[in-house]
């Protein structure tokens, strides 16, 4: 809100009125975005609010320009499970440990980078696996991808 109150063009207007206008405009924009309203619906709504033609046109033009960004923003709000953003892996060959020598086994360490919908960051999910287990994992992911492809073709 401070960027509105500090704007030099608006300094002659009563701050309370400014706040109300800002809130009303924001609400209008968010509601229009939420409902995926088209221009004619927004125009009609603004006409009912007794705005003049020029202002309605200006508002709608600005709205159209930012509509996609608004949709993305609104779509990203909300709860969802931890979201995987990336994966890193490490291949190692185990030779020995203090309990057992001559182990001679390849082993993968996989780290899934995850994001929380609320706070953004979250400790990564790491796990080790054998080659067979990694093949199982990749196989299942490929099944999911194939299903997705089929679903998009329907």
């Amino acid at each position, binding site marked *: 809100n401070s960027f509105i109150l500090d704007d030099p063009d608006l300094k002659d207007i009563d701050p309370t009125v400014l706040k109300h206008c800002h809130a009303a405009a924001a609400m209008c924009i968010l509601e229009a975005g*939420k409902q995926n309203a088209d221009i004619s619906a927004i125009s009609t709504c603004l006409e009912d609010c007794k705005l003049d033609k020029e202002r309605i046109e200006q508002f709608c033009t600005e709205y159209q320009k930012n509509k996609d960004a608004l949709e993305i923003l609104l*779509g990203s709000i909300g709860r969802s499970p931890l979201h995987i953003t990336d994966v*890193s892996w490490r291949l190692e060959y185990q*030779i020995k440990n203090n309990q*057992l020598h001559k182990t001679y086994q*390849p082993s*993968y360490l996989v780290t899934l980078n995850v994001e929380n919908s609320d706070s953004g960051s979250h400790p990564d999910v790491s*796990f080790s696996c054998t080659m067979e*287990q990694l093949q199982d994992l990749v196989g299942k992911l490929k099944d999911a991808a194939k299903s997705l492809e089929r*679903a998009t073709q329907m």
Partner: protein
Amino acid sequence: SIFLKALCAFFKGKLNISVDIIQHGVEGLMYLLTESSKLMISEVDFQDSINVLGFSDELNKSLLQLYLDNRKEIRSILGELAPRLPSYHSLEWRLDVQLASRSLRQQIKPAVTMKLHLNQNEDQTAQVLQTDPATLLHLIQQLEQALGEMKMNHCRRIVRNMK
């Protein structure tokens, strides 16, 4: 069992067998078998090692048999003691399409929801994760590259030379 026979053979001829001696005997046997299994020493090396103890031939033979019979299981138990990260158990997945939310109606947002089952020290954990189609394809590509590495000459050479 061979274990008891070896124990009795060891104590044959001793008149007063105190608890301490038996305990030391058992501990000695345990140490012998554990260390031998840990290092995976050959039959010849095992025999050479116990020869210095001055036991009878029959006892040496029993000890060797004891070692050979049990080393696989001992090694498998020792393997459980090593430091470990959670390990992969399995993965379940589900395709979802988000149609609406409180903030936005009329969506078509595909997502893959997964349940990753991991083992950690005898506990099994399940973590619910989600990803979008683009990231899913990226994950597959990266992990397939990882799998391919073992087949590369570099890795093959190392595996060959390590044994």
